[in-house]
């Protein structure tokens, strides 16, 4: 039974780590887009 528990724990842990990695990637994309918006605003002010 402990092996069965370990097997399913492994599946969801790996998927959870991947989702955390995706969330961090999404935050980086959001930061890039915010920086882009700031640059656009600055260039339109000129």
């Amino acid at each position, binding site marked *: *039974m402990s092996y069965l528990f370990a*097997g399913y724990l492994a599946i969801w842990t790996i998927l959870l780590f991947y989702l955390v990695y995706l969330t961090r990637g999404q935050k980086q994309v959001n930061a890039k887009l915010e920086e882009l918006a700031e640059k656009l605003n600055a260039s339109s002010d000129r």
Partner: protein
Amino acid sequence: MLSQNDQPSWQLARRYLQVANGLLIPGYLLVAVALYGAFLYAPTEREMGDVQRIFYFHMGTAWNAFLTFFGVFVAGITYLITRQSKWDRLAAACAEIGMVFTTIVMVTGSIWAKPIWNTWWAWGDPRLMTTMVLWLLYAAYFLLRSSLPEGDKKYQFCAVFGIIAFLDVPIVYMSIRWWRTIHPVVITSSGAGLATEMIHALIVSLIAMTVLCVTLVTLRTAMRLNASLADELFQQLDQRGDERL
């Protein structure tokens, strides 16, 4: 600011995100049903006992790993024909999810092997070794991606590598039929060799993991499209700044 070339990529990313959002709740429900099927609906296997219940998700993830690597293969061919970078983004997303799923397959297989084969890993077993080669091939694919500068040359090399790497998938599948192995052959020409309830649980698990896999691929492709679009727009802005100076 968006050029005519950028707009479809941005719209495509939005469409991918809509698909991912639409699949999220059905995905959750299907995974819940699949867990019910694996733990409560399917009977306990006579010889292996409860540890055999790993099988339903082990096979579900293996099937999806193959599916995503097939995605890399198709997207690679399509990129070489059309030269549209969106196919490269799709191939990279598929390869990444395929790597995650192959990792799950190897880890769950290893945990299952310990009580049944009395070893975590059978060195020399064709199924295990070809699966490890598959994982290493796609690890090399990402090394190649990260070592080349952005552009058509990189996408071409990666497409060709992805197409060649896919050749290992049929070898992994056929390895238990071609060579002597301790890995069981579940699906044969005469049927699945499982109790009816086990087949039901397996089918639900396959569907649930496929929905989860498609959700992840669409989400990751959208992220890659948006990230590359942001980079291109930064370059355009910098060039305009330089021109003004």
